[in-house]
């Protein structure tokens, strides 16, 4: 995995694009190490971080790299709390503190399953972000299945190529859960490796389904996290066989076999 420069770095915002209900933040990092798909960074705005609702945000916020192009990191943002709200207000020319790339990313298909013929990418909501940079890197056949709450969020599917879309309200694509689409794909051809990121309920559906079909799965998890580099011990999830995994240093991408269940995530500071 790519190692992070020691200490947070002040980097310049090069753009902020609307993508339906989401925004794509672009940050120039000409000297930074290229992240591997699934890795993340901790972000803080240089100005006015704090003194929002309830005097928050205070801690940095964790974001998967959604893309790495021409020395620029892309992050997918959704305004769901004081930190993400402040980050969504950024525009070109402003600065962000960045610590990263951090964590363990996705394992390439050739090193996961016995002989996977293709990768199935299953994403939900803002969790589609790491699947985009993964798709950029994959050389095998790829099937992309993305689920969203509604049509405004489904616009985010444009981040990936050739996605089949499902929405909870039926306003775009298949009316239902993205895991329904996965079930059909696995039935058609179970010799695949599944890469997934999204809400805990969706990830648990993916985990259970893949466990049943014997399909290897790599899950990118989210958890409440203060530091991102193993110091705070706050972001733990129960590990198969006992004990806990730290999502920041043991993950965020964790082999599904390491988990008995994907629990409702424990309230990442947003």
């Amino acid at each position, binding site marked *: 995995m790519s190692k992070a420069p020691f*200490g*947070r770095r002040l980097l310049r915002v090069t753009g902020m694009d609307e993508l339906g209900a989401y925004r794509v933040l672009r940050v120039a990092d000409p000297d930074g190490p290229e992240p591997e798909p699934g890795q993340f960074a901790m972000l803080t705005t240089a100005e006015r971080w704090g003194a929002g609702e309830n005097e928050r945000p*205070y*801690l940095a916020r964790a974001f998967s790299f959604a893309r790495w192009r021409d020395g620029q990191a892309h992050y997918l943002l959704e305004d769901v709390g004081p930190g993400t709200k402040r980050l969504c207000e950024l525009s070109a020319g402003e600065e962000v503190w960045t610590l990263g790339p951090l964590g363990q990313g996705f394992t390439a298909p050739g090193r996961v399953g016995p002989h996977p013929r293709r990768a199935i990418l299953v994403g939900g909501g803002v969790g589609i972000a790491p699947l985009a940079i993964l798709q950029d890197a994959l050389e095998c056949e790829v099937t992309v299945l993305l689920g969203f709450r509604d049509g405004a969020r489904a616009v985010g599917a444009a981040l990936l190529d050739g996605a089949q879309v499902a929405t909870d309200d039926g306003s775009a694509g298949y009316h239902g859960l993205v895991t329904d689409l996965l079930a059909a794909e696995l039935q058609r051809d179970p010799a695949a490796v599944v890469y997934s990121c999204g809400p805990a309920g969706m990830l648990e559906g993916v985990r259970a389904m893949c466990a049943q079909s014997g399909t290897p799965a790599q899950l990118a998890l989210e958890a409440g996290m*203060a530091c991102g580099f193993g110091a705070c*011990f*706050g972001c733990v999830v129960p590990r198969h066989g006992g004990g806990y995994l730290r999502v920041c240093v043991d993950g965020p991408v964790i082999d599904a076999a390491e988990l008995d269940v994907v629990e409702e995530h424990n309230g990442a500071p947003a």
Partner: protein
Amino acid sequence: MSVEFCGLRLVHPVINGSGTFDALAAREAFGTALNVEFPFAAYVSKTITLEPRRGNPPPRLWEASGGLVNSIGLPNKGLEGYLAEDLPALASLPVPLITNVMGSTAAEISELLEACDARAEIAAVELNVSCPNVKTGLDIGADPRQLEEVLRTVRPRTGKPLIVKLTPNAADVSACALAAEAGGANAVSLINTLRALVLRPVSRKGPSAVPERRPWLGAGTGGLSGPAIRAVALAQVAAVAERAQIPVIGMGGVSTAAHARDLLDVGARLVAVGTESFRDPVAGAKIARELAG
């Protein structure tokens, strides 16, 4: 900017608060750069207990107004695992190592101190006394009489400098500091986190839903740290430094050199950076540099 502390010569007065920086995990994340500018003049380990602990069930964190409430539960490999697996790696850090330990009885603490005493890699021991007495349920460090009694029993078990990490959740913290001094402590460190409670947010599912106001943190209560506690820390450090003869390590919400300077100016010998390192792992080095300049 070098400073003498309990017979140790430190290159600057900034160290880390116990449990706020995992040097071994940081080395994985940042590589050898960690050793090039190690952010602290001494490294304080997370708390080690006799038996391994897996820590508290999640959620373990809550972002508070200007701070953090945590209930981690002191996960660690236990004394044996620490000595065998972590200590050799920690010994390669470029600064002196202070091992933080906690026990719930004098006998447990004695065993921990004896084991640390036998290891040359350990420069000093910090005793976490924010641990409930198994008989009374009260924190050992919250009652001056109990604290002095425990320290008199365990003090002879190590010849290394012994720092007592005081709890701020006591009626009279300076009385506790004086008790630690009378019991043979070589230094005191404060403040630990302030006991704090966060409730689960009220469900937004509709007016008919009866809100279940349960604690947010998996273990119930937690400890508050960060800028929110800075003024409390300054008051407690000032009160202790005024009355105690032994050196004081001051901490609580230090984010900048100005905050560190405040603690030094009210009498702290060293300052520790804790929660700020979560936001920037090199915060300690930046603060030390700015203090020197």
